[in-house]
């Protein structure tokens, strides 16, 4: 099985050819956005944890810059931040793709930064526009799976259909990744049974146990399920988790990828299913999976969701026939046919597989046609980690 993608200097293969302007903190975001606005194919992203956001945020931004969908990167910094543009830029540049950085203070303010930034970006745009898609084996694909706005159809139809797809992908030589440890609370046993070995089994229990600690601190009332979950019929985190893990398919779990202040581990070469120590919050989880190398995300929703991701095209699957008929301009795949008894889980899985090959080769997802470029990053507070005695 083949798809047509963009080969990067490090040997990875992108399914998009993104010209990324990365404001290292939100203070330089307006300049980054103004630079990107006038250049063909460019858009700007940033993070909102300030200019000393810590290593986990830096790891995510570096990983996103290294993602094979990104053809070239211009980093924009104010100049005085604790996480400077040049430091991130030098690391991303090791991937071999065109990477440059500017400092607004060094260049003498907004006007000069805009002039210089646009000049650099225009050159990059010309350069990357000459890159052509080539045929690659499906073993070059890493697909993230995520669910959100779940109702009970997610566990009955949407997630099982994606699980069927994941099994087909892995059997064909591809890799898949899931990043939502809280949505595994109560589902440890079915996941642990699939661990490749004792070490992976231990990592699965530790990852889920750590996340449970973070979200059930005595005295802190934290919401970990949304109103839509409960209105949609989901009663407990266990029920939500047991439904959520269906999208991981049934193949062995070959690894739990570390994602901490210490390290953001990438998906290794070769087929297999991976868990990532990430988060359940949708665009943030997608940023983590993108940083680990995923080129695309399958998003399963019951209630519906109208967003996309700046780095990875997102194929939206709904298991709720009512949601599909209400939001046909947003939902790429209707898995509600499983609920109505018209189609089998495997048949929908096969449709998802076909769509993934098409989108990997350039077909726009509905979210892309709508121009969605959501981007956000998630940070675990190192102080809470220390107080909860969570070690890596």
């Amino acid at each position: 099985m083949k798809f047509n993608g963009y080969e990067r200097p490090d040997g990875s293969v992108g399914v998009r050819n993104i010209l990324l302007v990365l404001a290292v903190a939100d203070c330089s975001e307006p300049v980054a956005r103004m630079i990107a606005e006038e250049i063909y194919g460019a858009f700007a992203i940033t993070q909102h944890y300030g200019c000393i956001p810590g290593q986990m945020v830096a790891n995510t931004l570096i990983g996103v810059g290294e993602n094979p969908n990104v053809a070239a990167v211009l980093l924009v910094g104010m100049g005085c931040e604790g996480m400077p543009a040049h430091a991130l830029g030098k690391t991303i540049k090791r991937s071999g793709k065109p990477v440059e950085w500017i400092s607004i203070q060094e260049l003498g303010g907004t006007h000069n930064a805009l002039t210089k930034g646009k000049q650099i970006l225009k050159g990059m745009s010309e350069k990357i526009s000459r890159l052509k898609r080539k045929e690659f084996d499906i073993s070059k694909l890493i697909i993230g799976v995520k669910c959100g706005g779940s109702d009970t159809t997610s566990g009955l139809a949407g997630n099982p259909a994606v699980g069927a797809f994941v099994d087909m992908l892995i059997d064909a030589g591809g890799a898949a990744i899931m990043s939502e440890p809280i949505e595994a609370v109560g589902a440890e046993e079915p996941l642990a049974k699939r661990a490749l070995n004792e070490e992976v089994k231990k990592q699965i229990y530790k990852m889920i146990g750590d996340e449970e600690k973070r979200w059930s601190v005595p005295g802190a009332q934290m919401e970990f399920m949304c109103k839509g979950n409960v209105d949609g019929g989901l009663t407990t985190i266990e029920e939500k988790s047991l439904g959520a893990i269906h999208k991981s398919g049934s193949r062995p779990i070959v690894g739990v990828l570390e994602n901490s202040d210490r390290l953001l581990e990438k998906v290794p070469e070769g087929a297999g299913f991976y868990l990532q120590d990430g988060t359940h919050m949708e665009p943030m989880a997608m940023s983590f999976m993108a940083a680990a190398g995923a080129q695309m995300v399958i998003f399963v929703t019951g209630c519906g969701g109208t967003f996309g991701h700046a780095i990875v095209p997102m194929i939206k699957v709904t298991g709720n026939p009512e949601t599909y008929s209400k939001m046909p301009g947003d939902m790429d795949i209707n898995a509600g046919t499983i609920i109505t008894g018209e189609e089998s889980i495997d048949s929908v899985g096969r449709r998802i597989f076909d769509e993934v090959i098409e989108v990997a080769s350039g077909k726009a997802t509905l979210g892309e046609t709508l121009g969605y470029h959501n981007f956000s990053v998630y940070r675990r507070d190192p102080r809470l980690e220390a107080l909860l005695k969570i070690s890596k």
Partner: protein
Amino acid sequence: MKRAIMMNSRDNVATALENLDAGALTSVILPSQEVLKEVLTMQAIPFGHKLAITGIKKGNKVIKYGEIIGNASQNIAPGDNVHVHNVKSNRMQMPEIWYREEG
């Protein structure tokens, strides 16, 4: 007859595949579409919500997908709506606002 699906043969709840009226005989099917039994609903059950297919005593396990999804916080009769008002998680409790809104 309207349908509810039981995901695993160990389950004591089924999920409504359509809006079910109170007092309606409902056909409980397996994922293979095979009809397992019929249950009389005690309350209206919205699409996607659960009904008990056996009685579940307070404190006993509520099982879906063949796994424990929580424990009954009160006695549940066959055909009862099974949701946040009569099931508690064994792991993490949601903020009380959900229970108030459901009530």
